[in-house]
């Protein structure tokens, strides 16, 4: 009912604005809705709901949910795809590491939109927080909890902005509009900004219970997991050229404490089948720590579906468009395994995996490949009778070879929706899943030279992957690829030194989260973006000639430029990023 009445307000407001200027001028700003609406716990609670909605309010022209444009396409994991190099040409420039000012910076598509969308969402959190602060605990018994929730959302959004732009203005609820215009993106140094963002998660940890009745809301363990992520990023201290100069053991130890708490709470665990992370029917399962909640047939116009990946579907008969976000040959090759069922760390990319290799008795591969990429003749999205076909590719000659899969759903899924020429689903998007927590902990242990303790964590994921072949099979029960995967056994199949452990950890993150978009941010965190991506390009250029003049400029491309319009609109209080 509330929903309907609010809709009426919307219409009324629109008419008031459109009828005439005269009416508009006669309009009393001190209307009954203003103050009254904001001072009841129920209405303030609705501001909190709106703040939650904001973290899912996006589309592929400026996403804040799926980071595929920024984290996957800009890494060695994926190509842009689409109908031509110039189809969403801004994103082609991202893929080619060609972010010179100002055209990209003034374009609506991409990071300038993401900037505005993220800050719009932050303003909702701050709005709710201001109103929560005006109430008393007596008026609203769960006030502290709600404060913690919106601070979690605000922390999440500042974190997103931080990994995209490095130096961003930190906006809290105490600032007026004029005050916000005076906040520089360099108010805080790199490390200070991490600390500032961390305060929100600390507040969450202090004030939220470990479990809350509504699964879409944040809880204390979400705060701990997110803070662990933040501390891990913060641990890799960067100089002004974005190079990693030190790894801070204090921060790593915080990661250990926090991940320990999350793991030992026994609230979360890995899904038994890797597939459940990407399938309808398993939302908010044991592995999902915090997710963007999507929904369908929910009383909204089109449903709250995953439109940030709305371009990812193919030309398959059941879909139709637009074939963006395509696995790179390099990433597919990374799934190769050797005779021991371990990654081929040094030789994986020497020879490209082809359709002929990816058959039941073909080249040995990690089974996660059939959860991640559409491969010619293999069951697509766990449908034994629907086999991926190159004819689904929009422009094979440019980007072709493999298909996108994790973020798509079957066309007959009740979660699936066609929206214009695009597609979405109501399957949640995990912001943090338990596998992340295991690997953050493993990473911290390795960097603290306690790599022996990291081994079982990594092996947990390999063991789960090994057992995740039930849904990828053909109808006759055979595997479409030759699955060979084993755990690391020190002294038997690997010498578990710190450097090998680090290599194994980085590989595991890549395969486990392939196409889920943390890759680019991982490479920047580890300080190896330039060398990894230029090596990737060197091998990928003969395979994909459109990349011929791509080059990653170290010290610049690790972060996006501050959008030029934002610099203009704030009279130059923002300092542009390095080399832009």
């Amino acid at each position, binding site marked *: 009912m509330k929903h309907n009445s609010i809709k009426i307000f919307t219409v009324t407001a629109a008419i*008031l604005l459109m009828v005439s200027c005269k009416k508009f001028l006669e309009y009393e700003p001190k209307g009954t809705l203003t103050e009254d609406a904001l001072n009841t716990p129920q209405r303030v609670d*609705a501001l909190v709901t709106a703040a939650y909605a904001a973290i899912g309010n996006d589309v592929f022209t400026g996403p804040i949910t799926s980071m595929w444009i920024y984290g996957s396409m800009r890494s060695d994991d994926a190509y842009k795809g689409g109908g031509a190099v110039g189809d969403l040409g801004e994103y082609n420039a991202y893929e080619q590491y060609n972010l010179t000012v100002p055209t990209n910076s003034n374009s609506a598509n991409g990071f300038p939109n993401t900037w505005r969308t993220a800050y719009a969402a932050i303003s909702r959190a701050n709005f709710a927080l201001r109103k929560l602060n005006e109430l008393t605990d007596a008026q609203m018994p769960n006030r502290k909890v709600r404060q913690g929730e919106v601070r979690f959302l605000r922390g999440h959004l500042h974190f997103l902005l931080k990994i995209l732009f490095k130096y961003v203005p930190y906006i809290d*609820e105490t600032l007026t509009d004029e005050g916000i215009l005076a906040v520089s993106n360099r108010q805080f140094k790199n490390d200070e900004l991490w600390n500032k963002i961390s305060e929100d998660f600390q507040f969450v940890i202090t004030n939220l219970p470990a479990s809350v009745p509504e699964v879409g809301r944040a809880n204390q363990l979400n705060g701990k997991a997110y803070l662990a992520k933040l501390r891990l990023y913060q641990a890799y201290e960067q100089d002004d050229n974005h190079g990693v100069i030190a790894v801070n053991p204090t921060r790593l130890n915080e990661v250990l404490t926090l991940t320990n708490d999350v793991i030992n709470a026994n609230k979360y665990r890995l899904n038994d089948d890797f597939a459940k992370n990407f399938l309808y029917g398993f939302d908010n399962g044991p592995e999902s720590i915090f997710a963007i909640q999507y929904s369908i047939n929910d009383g909204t116009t089109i449903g709250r579906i995953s439109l940030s990946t709305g371009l990812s579907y193919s030309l398959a008969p059941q879909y139709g468009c637009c074939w963006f976000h395509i696995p790179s040959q390099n990433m597919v090759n990374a799934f190769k395994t050797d005779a021991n069922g371990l990654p081929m760390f040094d030789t994986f990319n020497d020879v490209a995996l082809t359709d002929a290799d990816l058959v039941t008795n073909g080249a040995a591969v990690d089974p996660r490949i059939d959860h991640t990429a559409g491969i010619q003749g293999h069951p697509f999205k766990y449908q034994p009778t629907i086999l991926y076909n190159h004819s689904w590719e929009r422009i094979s000659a440019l980007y072709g070879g493999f298909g996108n899969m994790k973020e798509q759903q079957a066309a007959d899924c009740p979660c699936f929706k066609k929206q214009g020429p695009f597609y979405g689903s109501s399957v949640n998007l995990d912001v943090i899943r338990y596998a992340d927590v295991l690997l953050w902990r493993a990473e911290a242990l390795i960097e603290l030279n306690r790599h022996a303790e990291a081994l079982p964590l990594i092996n947990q994921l390999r063991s789960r992957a090994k057992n995740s072949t039930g849904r990828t099979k053909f109808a006759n029960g055979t595997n479409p690829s030759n699955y060979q995967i084993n755990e690391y056994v020190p002294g038997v199949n690997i010498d578990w030194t710190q450097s090998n452990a680090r290599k194994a950890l980085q590989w595991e993150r890549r395969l486990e989260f392939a196409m889920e978009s943390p890759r680019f941010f991982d490479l920047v965190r580890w300080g190896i973006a330039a060398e990894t991506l230029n090596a990737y390009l060197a091998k990928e250029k003969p395979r994909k000639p459109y990349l011929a003049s791509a080059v990653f400029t170290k010290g610049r491309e690790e972060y996006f430029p501050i959008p030029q319009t934002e610099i203009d609109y704030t009279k130059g209080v923002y300092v542009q990023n390095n080399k832009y």
Partner: protein
Amino acid sequence: MSPTDFPGSWLNIGTAYDLNGANQGTLPSGYVSIQGENQNLRWESTDELNMGVDFGLLGGRITGSFDYFVRETKDILIQPPIAGAIGEGRVRWLNGATKTNKGWEALLTYHHSTQGGLNYSFTGSAAHFRDKITVLPPEVRTAYQGTSTNSVIGHSQLDIFGYKFDGIFQNQGEVDAHVTQTGKGIGRIRYKDLNGDGRINATDRDWIGTQLPKMEYGIRVDLDYKNIDLSIFGSGVAGKRGFDPMGDLNKFVFVNSNNGRDLLNAWTPENPTKIPMASLVNRNDEFRQSDFRQVNASYFKLRNVQLGYTLASTGLQRFKMAGLRIYLIGQNLVALKDKEYTAKDPERVGGLGNWSQPTTYTLGLNITF
């Protein structure tokens, strides 16, 4: 404004969220701000002065008029865009800039009738106007082009703000000698370092032209002799520079699509033209707004030619007709534009859909009873 001063308008679009993780069913929803308030909003006001003179010379053979106008509009109502960091629903209506318009219009007609029955007249008209922002409060600056240090004051809203083209780099020596310009290289466009800080960036943009023509003009000829009448009308604009929607498509490489003819004449060391060297990647950001992309957009169009023949009324009475006239009208017969402008029609601004107006011929019979 205090942060609690929100106006009473709320919007629920995008405030519903599946907090229960139910995946469907009616969602809880909330409120969001859609507009900032301004208690001091006023009407915009206009002061206008028109002066005109009508005249006749040589016993009415020459007639004409001249008008001059000045208009000043104050407190223009505007909703300027705001910094992203301020957040959602915070744009406000403000009383902003003051703008002056100045212009003139002239009309001159020569009319003559000869004893032999030839009547004819020639009419020429011309008009010119310029507008200029004269006052610009800082809070509305973002609604206009320009930057905080190089604002639109003294310029028209229709002026063009961008980089200055400074030729094509001919050799490595020129590339090395130039200031820091990301993406510079042999065969690429050199932009001018207007502020002299040793690097090309957003602060090197300046006012590089205007979309307004220097003059709009029209000519008209009316002529009749005995039973034949003829009228011709044409008009155009002069001194206009503008963006050619086909220009980029002709000058730059687009992968997996057809490419324009100008590319055949792209820069090479042997063929040092002003069209940048063909390149798959636009590393030098040559789509940026610059006078490289502004071309002569003046045009003249012969819009209407009409030739008529009226039959003598005496012979028509037999058919109970009062009059019969046969005429032929040709519309949009000729359109002249500069070769630089490669899209179809400079009069129709806008994207590639600016197809020229069709040429039409009408053969008509006008009968009165």
